[in-house]
């Protein structure tokens, strides 16, 4: 009998990525590299920012089972701080984005510490309440510009060299941020830490009696999710040169839930497809005005009634392989 050591088993967990996921990743990267030559880069950057936001949200709901209804707080604060840092403090673009991301992370530590003490609907309500407090703070605080928001944020130069006023240069910068965030999340959910998260989601009492402290793991996942949501918001502020109340509004928290559900909860690629679907609808159906919201609502109902696993979740189910 060939011997297998624990080290070899652990190594085996990380080596040999599932082939279908590698293929899907290559297709995604190929499509994203080619896309700006066929579609409007600013639209694509919006998709990428929301895709990263949805991936961050999915880390929490899909792999820990925590439904946060206040992720707009981290997205919005990331957006405001990056915009303020770039415009008022004159920080280089990359540092402004890092500042927005860091503030969202700190906010995640405080809000997460409060929220994870409760579960289910109570957890969702606490996160919503805290996000509403951030909304009213953003409405009143002088640095956010109130209803005007922070406008004309300079895109600046990447590392002082690459002029980001060019949409194409900005696009590839955003693509790099998105891919880093995406791969980081992929690494987290496939690490031993990610396995403990899944174990906690499935049977918290059992994970505890094996020797883990679920609250520590939940808080870490919450902070990672908030930080990445902040990164998405900060990037979005630089792309659109604008941070506004829309970014911290509760409807933003609802939209990210919708994107994740449409794409596929707990799937690696689902949030990306969900973000693409919803942002495309918002852009290309804009001529319908307020009806876009109604159409979104109908899609949400159809998704929940007809294909609860979401687009990618259903495909993965047919293929019998994780995606």
């Amino acid at each position, binding site marked *: 009998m060939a011997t297998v*050591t624990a080290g070899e088993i652990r190594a085996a967990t990380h080596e040999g990525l599932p082939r279908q996921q590698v293929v899907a990743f290559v297709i995604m990267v190929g499509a994203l590299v080619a896309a700006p030559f066929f579609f409007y880069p600013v639209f694509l950057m919006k998709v990428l920012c929301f895709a990263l936001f949805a991936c961050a949200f999915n880390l929490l709901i899909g792999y820990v089972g925590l439904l946060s209804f206040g992720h707009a707080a981290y997205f919005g604060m990331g957006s405001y701080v990056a915009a303020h840092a770039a415009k008022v403090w004159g920080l280089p673009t990359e540092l402004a984005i890092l500042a927005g991301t860091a503030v969202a992370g700190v906010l995640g530590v405080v809000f997460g510490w409060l929220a994870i003490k409760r579960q289910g609907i109570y957890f969702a309500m606490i996160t919503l309440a805290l996000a509403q407090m951030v909304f009213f703070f953003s409405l009143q605080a002088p640095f956010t510009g109130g209803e005007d928001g922070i406008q004309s944020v300079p895109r600046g130069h990447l590392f002082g060299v690459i002029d980001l006023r060019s949409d194409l240069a900005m696009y590839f910068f955003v693509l790099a941020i998105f891919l880093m965030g995406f791969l980081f999340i992929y690494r987290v959910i496939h690490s031993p830490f990610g396995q403990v998260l*899944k174990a906690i989601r499935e049977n918290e009492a059992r994970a*505890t009696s*094996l020797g883990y402290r679920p609250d520590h793991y939940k808080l870490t996942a919450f902070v990672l999710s908030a930080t990445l949501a902040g990164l998405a918001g900060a990037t979005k502020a630089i792309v659109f040169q604008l941070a506004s109340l829309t970014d911290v509004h509760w409807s933003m928290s609802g939209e990210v839930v919708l994107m994740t559900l449409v794409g596929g909860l707990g799937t690696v690629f689902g949030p990306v497809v969900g973000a693409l679907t919803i942002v495309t609808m918002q852009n290309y159906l804009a001529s319908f005005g307020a009806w876009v919201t109604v159409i979104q609502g109908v899609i949400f109902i159809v998704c929940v009634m007809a294909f609860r696993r979401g687009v990618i979740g259903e495909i993965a189910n047919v293929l019998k392989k994780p995606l």
Partner: protein
Amino acid sequence: MREQTNGADGGRTPFLRVQGLNAWYGESHVLHGIDFEVHEGEVVTLLGRNGAGKTTTMKSIMGIVGRRQGSVVFKGTETIGLPSNRIARLGLAFCPEERGIFSSLNVEENLTLPPVIAPGGLSVETIFELFPNLKERLKSQGTKLSGGEQQMLAIGRILRTGARMLLLDEPTEGLAPVIVQQIGNTIRRLKQEGFTILLVEQNFRFAATVADRHYVMEDGHVVAMVRNAELDQRMDEIHEYLGV
């Protein structure tokens, strides 16, 4: 109680000492002052009918019941005020009746999930030697295993951790005789390796083949302690308790 339950082993300091243990599920008072002890290297069973409080006793030792009072001392440390994760890290490993296999993880991931809390756990080769099926099903999802394989995985994964005391809750429940035999062999092997085991069993015949002593429970109380060597003499009494 018709037989003493303490001082069962000539004054040696017990590995696990449970005294006056009470437990509640909500308003329901389930354990009423349980007393027993387990010495290092022993295999001790808790016997009793359904609802006697055997599983609740295990869960109370691990700190996963709603409320508990009394004293549970493991290797000299009082654990009654500790959370479940701290108790596990003292070296107590629990294998629940429902097995608790994580369905979203495969066999390999389930096997490597529990944290190693001390050196001295079994190597993966030894676990595969005890349960060859696990090696063959390494990439299968936890829920795609048969009941016997799930039980092997549930036991196997806690052997890696370095915990020296195992709490096994009805490991033979619903399993085919050949698997029951394999689990019996495993328990005897673990005893040889120096593990201390507290076993909950309804299958009295199985318990008799592996245990050193038996505590009989009834309505949340320990009502008798029987050494394995005394089984034949006290069979009628045991049958009366167990209703067999």
